[in-house]
């Protein structure tokens, strides 16, 4: 019985179990777990890299969440897309399987590797840890949206220039993480870069070149070649 909450807390808990409150809590809980997880034994959060927990996602117009398919409106890279999917579909599966936006990769499907990293309302998130229904009303940014068609973002170009990739399967996730870091950190350093991508795993073993690419991109990528697509 030592694990039971105190009586006053228990009352709060019962109040909390309305359907709506449950979903709001789910939103917050999912957001917490979707924030970059600490993948390393040695990880520590620096002052500059404190994880901000976004507020519960607004639920918009949707009244019912299944069972069965529901209409889900997602604003991705500035464009609203409507999907008819079950509420259990993750944002990652919505992107990859329904919208053919396959830049975000499915690797662990449980918030352990960062290959599916996207930016939502300015926060770095694991799209495998979000349900698509709870992302309605949010500004979702995927790797497909960080550069106009036929062009490449400074970060992507820096990755290519530094050979900050081998098989490339973790790369879009790292590119999103570094993009987010450089937007939010005015004075990026080797240490801040390492801290920023502690929630992304690379298997081929190319981290050190990712750090180099991030620092190159931070300089504005002056002199970066290959900024237009070679068809």
């Amino acid at each position: 019985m030592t694990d039971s909450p105190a009586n006053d807390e228990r009352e709060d808990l019962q109040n909390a179990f309305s359907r709506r409150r449950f979903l709001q809590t789910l939103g917050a809980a999912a957001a917490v777990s979707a924030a970059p997880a600490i993948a390393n034994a040695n990880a520590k959060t620096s002052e500059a890299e404190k994880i901000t927990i976004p507020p519960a996602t607004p639920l918009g117009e949707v009244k019912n969440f299944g069972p069965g398919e529901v209409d889900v409106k997602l604003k991705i890279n500035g464009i609203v897309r409507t999907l008819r999917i079950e509420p259990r579909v993750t944002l990652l599966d919505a992107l990859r399987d329904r919208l053919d936006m396959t830049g975000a990769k499915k690797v662990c499907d449980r918030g352990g590797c960062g290959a599916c990293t996207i930016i939502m309302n300015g926060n770095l998130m694991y799209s495998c840890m979000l349900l698509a229904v709870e992302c309605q009303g949010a500004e979702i940014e995927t790797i497909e949206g960080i550069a106009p068609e036929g062009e490449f973002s400074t970060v992507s170009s820096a990755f290519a220039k530094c050979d900050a990739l081998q098989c490339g399967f973790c790369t879009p996730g790292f590119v999103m993480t570094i993009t987010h870091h450089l937007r939010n950190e005015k004075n990026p350093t080797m240490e801040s870069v390492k801290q920023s991508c502690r929630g992304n795993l690379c298997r081929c073993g190319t981290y050190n070149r990712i750090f180099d690419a991030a620092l190159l991109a931070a300089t504005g990528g002056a002199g970066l070649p290959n900024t237009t697509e070679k068809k």
Partner: protein
Amino acid sequence: MTKKNYDREETLKLGFAGNVVEKKVKLADDQAKPWDLDTKFQYAGKHIPRFDGLAKASGRAKYSYDMNFPGMLHARIVRANIPNGKITDIDVSGAEAIPGVKATMLLKKVGDRVRFDGEGVAAVCATNLEIAEDAMRAVVVTYEKMAHAVIVDDASKDGAPIVDKGDTNKSPESVNINPREVSEDEINKRFAAADAKVEATYRTQVQTHSALETHGGVAKWDKDSSGNPTLTVWASTQGSFSVLDGLCGNLKLDRSQVEVICEYMGGGFGAKFGADQPTLVAANLAKKAGAPVKCMLNRKEEHLAGGNRPDSIHHVRAGATDGKIVVFDVTNYGTGGYTGGAGARNIMIYDMGASRKVEYAVKTNCGPATAMRAPGHPQGSFVLEQVVDELAEKLNMDPIEFRLKNDRYPMRKAQYEKAMELIDWSRRNKKGGEGALAGTGPKKRGLGVGASTWGQNGNRDGTAMAVIINADGGVEVRNGCQDIGTGTRTIIGICAAEALGCPLENMKVRLGHTRDPYGPASGGSVTAPTVTAAAKDAGHAAKLAFLDKISKKLSVDAAKLDISLGKVFVKDDPAKSWNWHDACKLLGVETVEVTKERSDNFRANFSGQVGGVQIAEVEVDTETGVVRVIKVVAVHDAGLVIDRLTFESQILGGVIQGMSFALFENRVMDRKSGKMLNNNLESYKIPGSLDMPEIVTVAFDISNGHNSAGVAGLGEPTVIPTAGAIANAIANATGVRVRSLPMTPDKVLAALAAKGGSR
């Protein structure tokens, strides 16, 4: 077919600065001179960004996992949830009743044995992944359970449960004695008489490949113009043509009916050869359901059934006298899962005097081992490098001085010198745990070394390249092999452009379509030395064909023309020249298309092996047992360096994976339930950004003369010596040896405690 005349002879300058030899090779009339130390390169050897870097870094590269088609179905595999037993019933009716489920298939039948938790039993496909998962859960399989054994110690005991067939889990012992005339008695005598002796047991763990793109593929059936079925499969594979063969065999199709495509693949590390179960499931269910099917494993399945590196237990006796190793006697066994096969390789980098190796494998109720980057070598090297270090220690010799006394290979000597300079080897503690580097605080630093070798120079084996030159100046090279992330696409392009003389920016390379000419499966570090020579040969053939075609329009004898630095010119009047684009325009409506088979390897060459030396600096917290790698210097050669950037990335990857093997990775099996406990990526540890040391990679140039490009394989040797180097650095920092991988804090603390406390 006219028989080729090999009367032409060329002299090659081979080796490296300070160690150059001249060798003569015989060449065919139409063969260009092989690349050697005298070759002046326009591109090769520079830092060149990989051709597909931007496609990958922008998320636009389409991997097999990313292929989507209208009406495509998603498949899931039903897997055994017990480690050992017999199937008494499989009922798929519940799955088939679910709306959206389109087809099911059995992978096992009633009465079949399952031999590990996670073995495939049936498969289902449905209109989306969520329904497919429902269907997977609705398949009811019942078993007659049998006792299991999931670790070597349990499976090798007398009376242990039988894992698969037969009456024992142990394979017969193999005994190898080298040199052959040495008797077992002599081995024992040599050990007894040695000045310095090591007798110890070493353990290495089971490691899973954990490629980020899981196994599997997408299958799509169509009909050709005569109405015959055709099959296209996008596979995540290291062997596009071996997948092709597997599909043809499984589905009774001929090669003309099947194409395998793998333009991009998310890592394999040895586990992705042949048509694997999910790929065959995709093809079979697609046929049954009449729609394209995607079947990719999830992360848990990948750990359970996607392959692994076997563990090893080594019992070693070794001795040295007068600074020379005189005997190395090892018994090694381990488990490759239910299929057995668990060899470890204690590569004979060093002259061992006399050696005896006794080896056997023990079957366990675990997923089958597959080849993993330098199969057998990292585990063998972890043992060998520590043994060699301990012998040096006992002889009061510097470990590198001792190694050089027992290593005849000239290149490694030069590599040791380079590495020692880059890490400042003079800082090394003269005695383990004592010295300025170790310091007096609880965090102690030390340096350790490991050496590597490999010997892969590629094969002819029917590898060919197609080169197409268009009137717009564009050049395309095509080969059906795959780029597993090593940069194969890029080094093919560089070699072809170098041989042809066209500007590199005009070069495109199409890989991973099996309707293009044959290329090798990426195993044994065979790809680079095979395809670079092929690309050079084909680039040269394309040049001859191109010059022949345009010579008529220029009214100049083709033999008088040459191409270099993006210009076509008259050899005896170089002022008379045409830039690449103008020359290509002369083709008009024509194209030049050449398919050329790779030339044979040469017998005259510099060295049969490649070298490699790594030195690690570590910091051991003697209070917590945590080991941090501070810096690694890695010097590797692999013949001619084609792209220095991707060459260095290969070394970087080898070091990081080697460090991961040394400190983090470990498949944990629960003996009671027979299940893998850490079948994910958060508790199956691979290092992250904060674990990264400074890594200095040195691409050590050499001209080896083995093939027309002079290129050797690099992928595997880079991963071999890291764990041994780190183990030796830990010993140098602390004065204690950790003889079990991964070298986690508990083991470090236990070793310190055995020695008498943390300081």
